[in-house]
């Protein structure tokens, strides 16, 4: 894995290289170079299997983090290419020409995060929800509990026996109480 990262860093500027396991490494690449790097890995380094694409919302930094997780069937190891894109105007170069499965991930990300992939097929189609017109639901600033209470007629007298609360009071009475919990109790 070390050699691959060295080879890759000679071509592109890598950040946040983390060796998570012997066979798994994560590295961040700038938005401009990402698709090029992924294509290079696929064509020259044998990372031919796209395991998954994912997206993480880092709302504090105002960034979305995209992940391209590639697997090498010969060396049997994985590399995760991370790309940070702007949260306000999320747009990323589409990779649907590289694998046939990519457009599905991009369609899902478009629906759940609002990221635009220009040129990706069937991007505007519904994936899991129909006619959704609120904030894209996987964003951190969308409060699902509030939305559910507002919309779906919660049944009254629902006794929520919060296990955390129960355990704190009954099972661990001697546990030091944090300031926030003290505030909640009041």
């Amino acid at each position: 894995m070390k050699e691959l990262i060295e080879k890759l860093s000679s071509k592109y500027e890598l950040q946040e290289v983390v060796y998570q396991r012997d066979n798994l490494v994560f590295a961040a690449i700038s938005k401009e170079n990402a698709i090029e790097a992924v294509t290079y890995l696929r064509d020259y380094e044998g990372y031919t299997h796209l395991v998954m694409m994912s997206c993480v919302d880092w709302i504090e930094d105002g960034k979305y983090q995209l992940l391209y997780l590639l697997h090498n069937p010969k060396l049997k190891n994985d590399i995760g290419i991370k790309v940070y894109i702007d949260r306000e105007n999320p747009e990323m170069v589409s990779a649907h020409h590289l694998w046939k499965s990519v457009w599905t991930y991009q369609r899902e990300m478009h629906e759940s995060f609002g990221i635009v992939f220009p040129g990706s097929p069937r991007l505007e189609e519904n994936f899991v929800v129909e006619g959704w017109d609120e904030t894209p639901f996987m964003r951190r600033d969308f409060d699902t509990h509030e939305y559910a209470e507002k919309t779906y007629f919660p049944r009254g007298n629902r006794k929520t026996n919060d296990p955390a609360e129960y355990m704190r009071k009954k099972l661990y009475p001697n546990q030091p109480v944090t300031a926030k919990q003290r505030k909640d109790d009041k």
Partner: protein
Amino acid sequence: MSELDLNNKTSEMLANSEANVKNSKKNFTRPEDEKREVVAPDGSIIEVNPLYDYFSNEKPKEEKPRGGVVEKFLNWARAESIWVLGFGTGCGSIEIPPLVTPRFDMFRYGVQMRPTPRQSNAFIISGYLSVKTLKRVIRTYEQMPSPKYILALGSCTINGGMYYDSYSTINRLDKYIPVDVYIAGCMPRPEALLHGFVKLKQLIKEGKAEKANEYARNFDEYKANQKKIIKDWNMPDYNW
């Protein structure tokens, strides 16, 4: 009109209707369901509105039970022959195969599976219902012939259960369609489901399972609730 002209005209009309869809953003109907003009084989032009031509927009009517010995006999027949729609709406449908196989064998109780809504009169809502499925469930429920019964499986249909805070699943099923029997648990065991069927039979024999009439009576209320959560209401109000 020659055949070529006809084809041109048809494709032009289709293109027009597609353009209409693109212009109006809030329109959820698909292009083929749009109101449009169609050229008939003889050259005449007919206006077609697929959504309303093939469905009824009428409210359902209440169908009063006949009463007396006849109704008692019919209720017995209904109770002893429950036809369940094979529509697994949620994760509870994993317990349906054990029910039709040697271990639990619900055929003994006269419960059978039917594939189409037209021929079934009991509907197992097997677990949580996402809004997208609820739309299909309502349409299916309205297509089923009355008297019809609903068994709601799992705690998710009672109060949302584990998904009480989910943006995608409903919390209370009885706000949208009337429920005859609730079967609690996550997920309920097949024995519980069998018990639910026995309970339903008992209700039918006592003449208490008249929820289809209740749906007709409170139709406006149910429709208002359904329209509140189904965002792309692109279907007629009632279809049978």
